[in-house]
């Protein structure tokens, strides 16, 4: 998680109030306070594609400015921005999927569930220590459905509480917990076995 600070509740209430008035200083504050953290999140959400991340972050802030009057401050400002960005990330993956003539089997949940990929599991040294870990984990993550990766990033990388993730993904707590559980299980199944 990045160390970029976010505002306290009273500061956020004040920020929302000023955004509603279309106060230029509020927009500047919105940008300076949240840009770094949001950019880092989106960059990871789109598989570290800098160009796509820039497009989505730009669209997110412009959409936020346009729709700020409709933001009632019921969630934190960062959650609000994440929610806008999340939908744009979802659009990105949907366009990507529709552009492809066929869906790569690596994105196929059925394949994950059928255990086909378990056959590839081989004994391995502790992956948390290996220099090859990054490549192995990246391969495992690439096999996950995109929404599995999103919920894992929001929970473990951006360290957002489940209730905030609910607002971002517009799911119920039960649904987010279920998605997290399935994502963790699928990732574990995609990682090579490791032992002594």
């Amino acid at each position, binding site marked *: 998680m990045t160390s970029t600070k976010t505002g306290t509740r009273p500061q956020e209430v004040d920020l929302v109030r000023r955004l509603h008035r279309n106060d230029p200083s509020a927009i500047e504050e919105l940008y300076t306070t949240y840009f770094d953290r949001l*950019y*880092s999140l989106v960059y990871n959400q789109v598989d570290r594609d800098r160009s796509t*991340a820039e497009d989505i972050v730009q669209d997110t802030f*412009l959409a936020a400015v346009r729709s700020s009057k409709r933001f009632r401050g019921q969630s934190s400002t960062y959650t609000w921005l994440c929610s806008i960005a999340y939908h744009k990330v979802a659009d990105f993956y949907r366009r990507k999927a529709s552009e492809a003539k066929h869906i790569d089997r690596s994105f196929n949940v059925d394949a994950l569930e059928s255990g086909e990929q378990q056959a590839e599991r081989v004994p391995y040294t502790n992956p948390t220590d290996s220099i090859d870990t990054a490549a192995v984990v990246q391969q495992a993550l690439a096999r996950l459905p995109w929404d599995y990766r999103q919920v894992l990033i929001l929970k473990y990388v951006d360290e957002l509480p489940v209730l905030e993730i609910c607002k971002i993904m517009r*799911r119920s707590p039960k649904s987010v917990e279920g998605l997290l559980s399935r994502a963790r299980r699928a990732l574990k199944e995609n990682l090579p076995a490791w032992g002594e």
Partner: protein
Amino acid sequence: MTEEYNDSDLEKMLKDIYKPETASPQFKERLRRQLVEAASRPAPRPLWFRPMVWAPVAAAVALGLIAYFAVASLTSTHTVRSGSLAVWVTDAPGEVQTLDVTVSEIQVHRAGDDSASDDGWITVISQPVTFDLIALRDVQELLGEEELDPGHYTQVRLIVDNVTVNDEIEAEIKLPSGELKVVGQFEIKADCTTALTLDFDAEASLQYTGEGKAVFQPVVKPIIGEPCQEATTPD
């Protein structure tokens, strides 16, 4: 001996992969300038006062219902599978500047459950969601998502609370009890994703009276995808 990964292993691996990233200074500066410009730009004159401009209003809106089913338990202790339902919205070109629709609830009807206490209606979204159909041009927005049991579903019901045109004109909603029912049969299968898109014809949905009032009477066509397919944007 093979050990299982625990959550802290996963967290460490994920943090190693998804490290914090900094944007280029050029991009940061460019975006900062764009935002300053956007903030200083005066609000455009509402088209509401120029009926000749918006007269040929044409917009298309889609609400998608995507049901995701829970990944089957890979362990021997199998539990009942459930899925989840995602609602998406998109738009089509038009000359109205904003068309905010607030939906307070979305329900689906499962076939054969008519005798149940809820008459077979299952609430999939219970939080009010407001979306601007015009801002969603060429894109879709996820309205919400909820888990559902596998089965045969026959209808979708949306509670439309409010429709506002150009941030200022509250449209009259012409729906019995504010409810929009759409008949569309779709299947939810275990471990599969089924997409149901409700294609709103905004041009036909939004009417104007001679007194400068707007009336929103949704015209909707359901588009049902095959199980396990992604939702697609309506043409």
